[in-house]
């Protein structure tokens, strides 16, 4: 820390509007008499460039090394002010702001009280400034390779886009071939795209790329390290390999599962799942007996799956086109909230697909080798309709891939209530995990149709690129620090850290201590709060800063 504190205070009266209620010149004199205050300035428009230029010059000329600003909301101008003080050679963490406009004069009708509050806020900011500590930036070399887990269409697309962005990618797939669900789908309605052609074009593209390495029959076992320097253990066939990566993208997709408990019956030769039907449609030339009438049922196990409605619509039209069978879809609410799905629904209807909507689950029984369905059609009447079909196609629920639970605990990444991966922030960072450098794309974390999944593939590719675009990542060093002498190595912080940013290190002959990994730390300060030994200090909110901020309130208590 600098030997001498030189505080510079910049007051802004917002175009003279605030000076009606409070006498800035008195405050200025008061502040000037306080110890360590080197310079006090009153401005009218600190948000404008000219005033900010003057501020920069003042900081430089007076040798100010801590800056206090009393103006409007930092939400609006903090970032701008940070660049000003940085340009003046002051560390960005040495800025303390008092919001005297929105939080004082605009919030309180009583101007005398507002003025009193403003004075307190300024003192508070000034006290805090005394204990601010600089945080320096450091550049840490990173590995620029990316690991993509899952060779379905999302993984393939992400790998291709990463390759376009000149990043080397390893794509691992647990099956023997790439393509995932695309190998299974007979068509991709509502898109007029052939899944085989789509896949073939991409596979050809992948083999031509120098910077994509594909490992099939391969599974991720464990990951050590942190963003920029992950080391992943991968089991390929029966061999184990360790490779290093800068970022990891999960595109492991979803599995489907039929649950007989919900339906109350088992699968049989005339009750089949969507995946089984897709197999039949895919290899239709081998089908001996064409079902004359087929009924689909969805929304039984849950009402909220985009994927199961979509496969029913897609396969209903597929069956109509291939076999000309009589087709009916039973559903509660048709999920058509995706591009082209309303049109697909209309195409189904125009091709003669019958839609029956129910509120109560239909009764299903077998009769003379046929499936008898008794259902109350809510659109027609209150009466039960009795219909009979050769084949019943039941929906499957989407479930997370079997290894996601294991990987989530091995990698310390979150799962949601269904067991799918949990995003860091569903609004702001929908493809980021709770760990820096680990991303999710596609149906391994959300219920998406193909176009939405492709959008996510692009998003993660760009996010990974942004992280690894340079040889080194710039991070703030030692924003949070552990005092190894105080650390009792109780592991509380390691357990509490949501970002997997604390590791164990040996500090001195067998004495172990916690250490913050700057690359992974997001500065949330949870560890500093939970540490029972008070061994962890968060420089942007240390105990000294907070206690000093409370001091001005002592006068009122």
């Amino acid at each position, binding site marked *: 820390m600098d030997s001498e504190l030189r505080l510079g205070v910049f007051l802004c009266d917002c175009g003279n509007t605030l000076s009606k209620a409070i006498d800035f010149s008195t405050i200025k004199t008061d502040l000037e008499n306080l110890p360590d205050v080197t310079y006090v300035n009153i401005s009218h428009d600190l948000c404008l460039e000219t005033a900010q230029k003057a501020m920069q010059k003042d900081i430089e000329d007076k040798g100010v090394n801590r800056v206090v600003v009393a103006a409007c909301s930092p939400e609006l101008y903090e970032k701008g002010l940070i660049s000003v003080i940085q340009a003046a050679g002051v560390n960005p963490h040495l800025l303390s702001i008092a919001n005297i406009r929105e939080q004082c004069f605009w919030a309180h009708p009583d101007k005398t009280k507002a003025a009193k509050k403003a004075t307190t806020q300024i003192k508070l900011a000034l006290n805090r400034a005394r204990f601010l500590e600089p945080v320096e930036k450091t550049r840490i070399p990173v590995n620029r390779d990316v690991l993509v887990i899952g060779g379905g269409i999302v993984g393939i697309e992400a790998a291709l*886009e990463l390759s376009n962005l000149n990043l080397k990618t390893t794509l691992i797939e647990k099956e023997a071939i790439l393509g995932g669900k695309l190998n299974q789908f007979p068509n991709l309605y509502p898109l007029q795209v052939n899944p085989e052609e789509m896949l073939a074009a991409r596979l050809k593209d992948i083999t031509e790329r120098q910077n994509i390495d594909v490992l099939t029959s391969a599974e991720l076992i464990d990951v050590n390290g942190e963003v920029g320097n992950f080391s992943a253990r991968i089991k390929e066939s029966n061999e184990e390999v360790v490779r290093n990566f800068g970022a990891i993208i999960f595109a492991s997709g979803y599995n489907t599962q039929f649950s007989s408990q919900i339906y109350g019956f088992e699968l049989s030769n005339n009750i089949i799942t969507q995946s089984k039907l897709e197999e039949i449609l895919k290899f239709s030339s081998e089908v001996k007996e064409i079902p004359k009438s087929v009924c689909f049922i969805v929304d039984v196990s849950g009402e909220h799956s985009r994927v199961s409605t979509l496969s029913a619509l897609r396969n209903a039209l597929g069956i109509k086109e291939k076999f000309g069978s009589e087709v009916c879809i039973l559903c509660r609410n048709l999920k058509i909230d995706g591009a082209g799905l309303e049109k697909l629904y209309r195409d189904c209807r125009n091709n003669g697909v019958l839609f029956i909507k129910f509120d109560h689950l239909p009764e299903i029984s077998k009769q003379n080798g046929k499936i008898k369905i008794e259902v109350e059609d809510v659109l027609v009447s*209150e009466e039960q309709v009795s219909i009979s079909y050769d084949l019943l196609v039941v929906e499957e629920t989407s479930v997370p891939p079997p290894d996601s639970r294991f990987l989530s605990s091995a990698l310390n990444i979150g799962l949601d209530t269904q067991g799918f991966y949990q995003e860091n922030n569903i*609004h702001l960072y929908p493809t980021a995990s709770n760990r820096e450098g680990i991303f999710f794309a596609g149906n391994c974390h*959300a219920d998406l149709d193909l176009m*939405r999944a492709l959008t996510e593939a692009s998003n993660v590719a*760009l996010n990974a690129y942004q992280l690894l675009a340079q040889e080194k990542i710039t991070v703030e060093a030692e924003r949070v620090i552990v005092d190894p002498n105080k650390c009792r190595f109780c592991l509380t912080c390691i357990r509490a850290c949501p970002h997997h940013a604390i590791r164990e290190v040996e500090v001195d002959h067998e004495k172990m201590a916690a250490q913050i990994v700057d690359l992974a730390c997001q500065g949330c300060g949870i560890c500093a709060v939970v540490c029972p030994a008070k061994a962890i200090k968060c420089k942007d909110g240390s105990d000294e800063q907070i206690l000093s901020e409370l001091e001005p309130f002592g006068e009122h208590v």
Partner: protein
Amino acid sequence: MTNDNVLVIGGGVAGIASASKLADNGFQVYLVEREPIIGGHAASFGCKATETCSQCSVCLVSEKMREVTAKPQISLVVNSEVVRISGSIGDFEVDLLQKPGVVDPEKCIACGICTEVCPCEPKKGIFLPSPEAIPHTYILDRTQCLRFKGAECNVCQDNCPVGAINFEQKPNSKILKVSAVIVATGFEAFDAREKGLLGYGMYSNVLTGLDLERIINGQEWITLPSNGNSPRNIAFIQCVGSRDEYIGHGYCSQVCCKYAMKFAKLLQYQDSEAKVTIFYIDLQTTGKGFGEFYEACKKTIRFIRGIPVEIREISPDELEVKYEDLAKGKIAKENYDLVVLSIGIAPRKDSWDLAKILGINLGNYRFFDTQDTLDSNRTNIDGIFLAGTCHGPKDIPESVAHGIQAASKVIQTLKARTA
């Protein structure tokens, strides 16, 4: 890192997301917005949280807007429209026309004096459009301002402490040289007047979803326009302007079911006695976490299948809704004090003009079209990309994701050219 400039047309969430990502990756970005402030439709929406967050994603908008001011690589050009474009990828030349704004955003310090002194009542002629407005500047409403009604009023100009107000500004033109263009011009809310029988614009207590958004955006309680009371018996009508081939909107708008249910919960939160009925065709309850929300809605909200055909005002505070009772197979009538039309997303009426200027294609339902079905960003013109709802209905997080996708495609395309 790169010398490429990119033009983003439209400062809504999708355009902002594109601009912000391009800036992060070292590009210089011109973000052109025709309005005086950015944020587009989403900036006029309000938070729908009750005692818990309802995940409407509106908070994301101001977060994204602030990214624009924080990134010096983004040059924001407001009040402007693209009038001509020439050249090709790597070398586009774009003519912008900047409408004269009365308040100079470069000078305005948002002190609020102009609004204080403005003689217009009750609605002021000059005001801060939103507490989070970016650029953070006051704007003048020509429909309110006395000066534009012929009066000799100079009060705001005379009182402005920084001289930011100037009535004499002239339209300005500007030429930009850019390597690629992202079109993110957004949507237009369906005009509910087209459905004349629903009475929007005729009956004061028939509102649209967008009207409710604007009310709660001002952090106000939702009240009945006719008498200012809290609504007790509310009907929501879904698919107004969506899933309707007859008016050329044969698509699902993808946002209305979710916002209607969130509003319904909010109305019941503000008045626990409020009864809400939602008339629908198919409820779209997909999306992460929304299933649980819908299950909670089922406990307090009445859902009726079928879209009412007619609304009549039987007294200033009472509306009669005529619908088909499917269970009984008859026409039924019910009275409500407030009817909310869940209007959907429509293509902008002027999208044809921009399509002509840029030479890009319009597709189904007059949204902008892409060249390849599997690539939702690339248009028929190399170097021009789409982002957000100008390509088709999307919610806020999807618009952001699509904006980022467009940025990704621009970066990949320009990289391939220089390689």
